[in-house]
């Protein structure tokens, strides 16, 4: 899917379908082993202010586990795992080499808002999933450090605050729910030194795909040198091809005052 779209072959309807986007991007990224890319990505994911400062997901992970995501032995990506609270889009499970694993639940949106609000707030329900990882299908270790990330195409702070309020806003909840934008994936890729040629190819493909989707941050307008220079006189080309044979036009016509065009 991803490669087809890079080459301009896509189904228009699928381009607004967020599950397709999640699948195309993370279906490839799951082959990137724990390392600098994942560290870079979750260094960008930030919390809501806790005592006036924000923390990144990676800071929380380092604080709780004493290590960064890059130090884990393996990564398992679970797409649409089931739980009594709902079905999040994706769970990344970092495990191995460390005594305590890390679970990152990701709920991804493209342009839609949360599917439910109020007492059934989607993100509030997913925060509750973090408290019972053993009830997921397939189950995950209940002692894992569990965080949630809301991944969107535009700023989602307002939605996150709403969810925190529904869950019961507290510092503990704020330290578990982070926001990230699709545009940050490209930022993380640009900050990453790929560990292998295969990693470089995967990250390059994901980057090209997101670029095609215009899921990048604004970085200035195009420079004048890149814009085709067209003079008004170039419009003369429109007159190059004669629509009539001039010789066939009668010459005894009156010149008509063009003011009729502006008359009431």
């Amino acid at each position: 899917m991803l490669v087809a779209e890079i080459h301009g072959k896509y189904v228009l309807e699928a381009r607004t379908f967020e599950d397709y986007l999640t699948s195309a991007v993370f279906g490839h990224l799951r082959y990137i082993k724990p390392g600098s890319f994942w560290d870079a990505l979750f260094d960008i994911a930030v919390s809501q202010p806790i005592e006036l400062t924000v923390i990144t997901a990676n800071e929380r992970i380092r604080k709780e586990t004493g290590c960064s995501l890059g130090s884990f032995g393996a990564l398992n990506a679970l797409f649409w795992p089931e739980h009594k609270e709902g079905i999040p889009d994706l769970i990344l499970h970092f495990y191995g080499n460390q005594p305590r694993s890390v679970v990152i639940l990701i709920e991804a949106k493209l342009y839609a808002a949360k599917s439910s609000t109020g007492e059934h707030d989607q993100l509030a329900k997913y925060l509750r999933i973090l408290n019972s990882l053993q009830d997921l299908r397939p189950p995950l270790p209940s002692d894992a450090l569990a965080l949630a990330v809301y991944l969107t195409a535009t700023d989602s702070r307002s939605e996150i605050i709403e969810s925190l309020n529904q869950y019961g806003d507290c510092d503990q909840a704020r330290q578990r729910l982070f926001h990230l934008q699709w545009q940050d994936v490209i930022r993380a890729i640009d900050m990453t030194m790929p560990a292998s040629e295969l990693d470089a190819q995967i990250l390059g493909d994901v980057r090209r795909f997101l670029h095609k989707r215009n899921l990048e941050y604004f970085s200035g307008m195009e420079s004048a040198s890149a814009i085709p220079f067209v003079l008004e006189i170039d419009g003369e080309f429109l007159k190059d091809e004669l629509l009539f044979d001039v010789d066939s036009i009668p010459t005894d016509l009156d010149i008509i005052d063009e003011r009729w065009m502006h008359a009431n």
Partner: protein
Amino acid sequence: MPTEAGKKIYECIKAVCRMHASASKLLKDFDKYATYPSISVFQNTATKDRTNAASASYWMPEGVFRYLSCKDNPRLVEAITVCFLDNELEEPVLLLGQLEYTKDPLQTRGVCDGWDLWYMYFPVRTGWIHGAADKCVVPEDRALRIQSATLISVPLYSIERAEDISTLLKKVRANMPAVPGNVE
């Protein structure tokens, strides 16, 4: 057989597409700098009134917009508009503004029109200066909906980074009367 005219116009069309892509990024990044917390009045819709008819002078949108209603005071809306095409323009222009509506645009349909900022700017007032925020004279046909408005304009191609939006919005807010929800 390729034609010189066709190749020239094709390069122009591609440049216009690239401009649209950059404008789309600006609209999305606007949320980060606008009033917070807020809700998009028109969700993901960025333009309207573009004809799909076979009989048309052109099909390109004349502009795009995004309006965010402040959650703490929904009548207060911050908006961005990119004007691509108008007889009065020399080049595409970016408009940023703050509007105070008479009613909550999220509750009452039709209170907020995506072209409100556009019609605060056009026809361009004599002596209007790019880069200076000023209060707008609300046109008579919009005065029942819009209580007050302030806007700033800059040439679109003068925007170098998304943070420029923040600088421009600060100028707008400094010119807006004290209303609840105004972050400045």
